[in-house]
């Protein structure tokens, strides 16, 4: 599949009903089609032409809807954005979930229905998603233009007798509710585990307890203000999300980021990935109650946090990014020093790995639990280490490179088993690759500017990065005054939480926290 040929393929396949515009610089095929063509076109993109589903972006114009379905493929295939429009009054669109069998779009359509009031015909279950029915009445559409984001919404008519939906109706079946506050130091999320005894037969995840409506808050703010939100809505991966936002702005303005800033960005992004993976390893060790290994991984994470703090001033890399480059330069010597520290941490991380590999009590807990099969990973368009442990190797750094990743040598680790152990192995393998990239990034540091002037103008663009947990997409629309008119964040945790219940089902209760930890999911990233 070549992105240049796709235009003929689409316009030939649906003559008169789909128009295609190819942007060679950004490698984007923008397809405008009718509602009747949407399902068929998306189905062929996903199932026949091997595109992954990135996300659905709803835009409300002055008098019309624009729904943008974003797909991405391997390097040559580039991006496809399928656009469907309709007048504001006609807010019913065909669902691509069941008919086109793109399950990855399930939560996107549910979210759009909740926040915009757009309906999707053929979707099996809408409602009670972002806006919990026990807190909000139906018919509230907070992402619509007229809705006041700053004022508290006093008129509430919640569903007083809201109860979770039950699926298991065996004799003796019951629901075990967990959360939103559970265990020691955990994020707020609610699980409903249905069972008749030992095994979890069905599990459901209820998210959005932490919904801060970042996308709504961004509207009408300047790019500088929204950058603060982009960095702070999911701060364990702050740099990756800030970078995706800045890349979207740079694409709108057509600005080139100086070479030194590009290399520094890669260096910092990989430092963040290494730290996040060390934290994920610690969580996995902790869930299996392997105390010494937990402490060892905790030491590594703290050392990387300190290395980040020493290099940049902030342990989570806040306040470094700016549209057009970086807010401040970092000394090459200091980067070398940080690289040395990262290398030292990596060598001890690999020692930890080799010891975990021969700890049978540990392996018994994570091998063959929480299995995600490759076909599921593909159907749900999973991302990040979770996808790469299930045989899906699509990594944005390789598939759609940005910030100069195309000039670095690295491998994309791949495992096929899809169990907890495979996910752990991918984390270790990626940590190795991160240090390899950091080494090349430091070598590529040339003298020069770290920030290019940027002239923000009206427009819209997508920024995409491979965040530590997987592919993150930031869609930014700017108005004539350079203020943000639409901001949509598709996060890796949003994609991976969608499939988490499949991994938890058919396993025993005591496996649940272990499966959860091997997924390395962030609630803050999902809830936004």
């Amino acid at each position, binding site marked *: 599949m070549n992105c240049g040929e796709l235009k003929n393929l689409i316009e030939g396949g649906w003559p008169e009903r789909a128009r295609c515009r190819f942007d060679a610089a950004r490698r984007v095929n923008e397809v405008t089609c009718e509602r009747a063509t949407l399902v068929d076109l998306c189905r062929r993109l996903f199932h026949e032409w091997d595109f992954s589903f990135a996300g659905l972006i709803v835009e409300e114009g002055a008098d019309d809807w624009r729904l943008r379905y974003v797909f991405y493929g391997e390097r040559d295939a580039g991006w496809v954005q399928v656009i469907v429009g309709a007048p504001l009054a006609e807010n019913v669109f065909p669902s691509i979930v069941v008919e086109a069998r793109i399950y990855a779009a399930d939560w996107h359509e549910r979210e759009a229905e909740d926040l915009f009031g757009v309906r999707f015909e053929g979707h099996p279950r809408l409602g009670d998603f972002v806006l919990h029915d026990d807190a909000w009445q139906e018919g509230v559409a907070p992402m619509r233009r007229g809705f006041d*984001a700053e004022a508290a919404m006093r008129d509430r008519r919640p569903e007083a007798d809201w109860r979770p939906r039950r699926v298991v109706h065996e004799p003796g079946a019951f629901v075990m509710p967990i959360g939103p506050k*559970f*265990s020691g130091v955990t994020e707020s999320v609610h699980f409903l585990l249905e069972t008749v005894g030992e095994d979890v037969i069905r599990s459901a995840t209820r998210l959005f307890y932490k*919904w801060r*409506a970042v996308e709504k808050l961004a509207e009408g703010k300047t790019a500088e203000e929204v950058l*603060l939100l982009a960095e702070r809505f*999911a701060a364990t991966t702050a740099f990756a999300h800030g970078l995706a936002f800045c890349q979207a702005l740079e694409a709108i303005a057509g600005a080139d980021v100086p070479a030194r800033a590009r290399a520094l960005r890669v260096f910092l992004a990989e430092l963040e990935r290494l730290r996040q993976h060390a934290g994920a390893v610690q969580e996995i060790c902790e869930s299996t109650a392997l105390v010494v290994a937990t402490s060892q991984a905790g030491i590594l*994470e703290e050392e990387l946090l300190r290395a980040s703090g020493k290099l940049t001033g902030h*342990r989570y890399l806040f306040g470094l990014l700016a549209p057009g480059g970086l807010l401040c330069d970092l000394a090459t010597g200091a980067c070398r020093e940080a690289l040395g520290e990262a290398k030292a941490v990596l060598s001890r991380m690999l020692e930890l790995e080799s010891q975990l590999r021969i700890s049978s009590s540990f392996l018994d807990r994570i091998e063959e639990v929480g299995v995600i099969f490759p076909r599921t990973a593909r159907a749900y368009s999973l991302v990040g280490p979770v996808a790469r442990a299930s045989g899906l190797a699509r990594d944005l750094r390789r598939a759609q490179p940005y910030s100069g990743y195309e000039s670095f040598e690295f491998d994309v680790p791949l495992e096929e088993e899809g169990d907890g152990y495979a996910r752990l192995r991918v984390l270790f393998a990626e940590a190795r690759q991160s240090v390899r990239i950091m080494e090349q990034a430091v070598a590529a540091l040339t003298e020069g500017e770290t920030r290019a002037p940027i002239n923000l103008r009206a427009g819209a663009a997508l920024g995409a990065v491979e965040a530590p947990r997987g592919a993150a997409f930031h869609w930014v629309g700017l108005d004539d005054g350079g203020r943000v008119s639409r901001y949509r964040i598709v996060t890796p945790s949003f994609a991976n939480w969608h499939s988490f219940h499949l991994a938890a089902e058919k396993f025993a209760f005591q496996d649940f926290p272990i499966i959860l930890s091997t997924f390395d999911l962030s609630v803050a990233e999902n809830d936004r």
Partner: protein
Amino acid sequence: MSRWVVRGIRTGIKTTGYPSGPEHAPGVTPGLPVGGEFGAEAAGLAGRCPTHALAHANGKISVDYRRCVHCYRCVRGVERSLAWRAGWEWAGLTGEPQVRGQLGRPFQRSLHILVVDAGDCGACLNEVKQLNNPYYNMHRLGFFITPTPRHADVLLVVGPVTDHMRTALKKIHDAMPTPKRVVAVGACALSGGVFAESFVCGKGASEVLPVDVEVPGNPPPPLAILHGLLVAVGRTPPVPLVSTPSEPYPER
């Protein structure tokens, strides 16, 4: 299994000397800005702060640490910048200290803490988690994390308190036995941070709960959270949450 024991022993002691000794490792804190005399530039500098943490009067800048989100816009990309100080003893008493005050002697070496995430971005929570790793090891001070409100003496709340978490947070606080204290951690829990004020977020935990100790920072480093807990039990004196140029910040 013996391999793990050997490995643990070989690692040696990593734990910080704080609070009884010094801690000089680089990168343990993001630091905070310091106010001062800036003359005609004061208004411009204070105007750069996106969360209104900086206020100026007569050419002097004062800092409200509860609002600072470490965006570094008052020090990076400006000609004359605010001074920046390291350190981590940032926690102050708030609310009605004369009514509740610090927890007394019975709690000073045995404190059970319930951590509630009320919309946190993940960073504050991650820093709380670091308190249990060998570098900080808060067990040595008699501080323990508990999963149940029935055993908790301190409710440690992070995040700006989202709409969907408000009920849960109130219920958790009600379920705790007295005497109890609330420690709010991070700029979001103190002022709403970058998320306030909106239709789903208020201006921090004090709108929902009686907050006793406030720990500034975005996120506060583990040592600052430790200081907040020491303040809650009365083992360390609190510090002011707002610095004014006439009253420089106390350094111990």
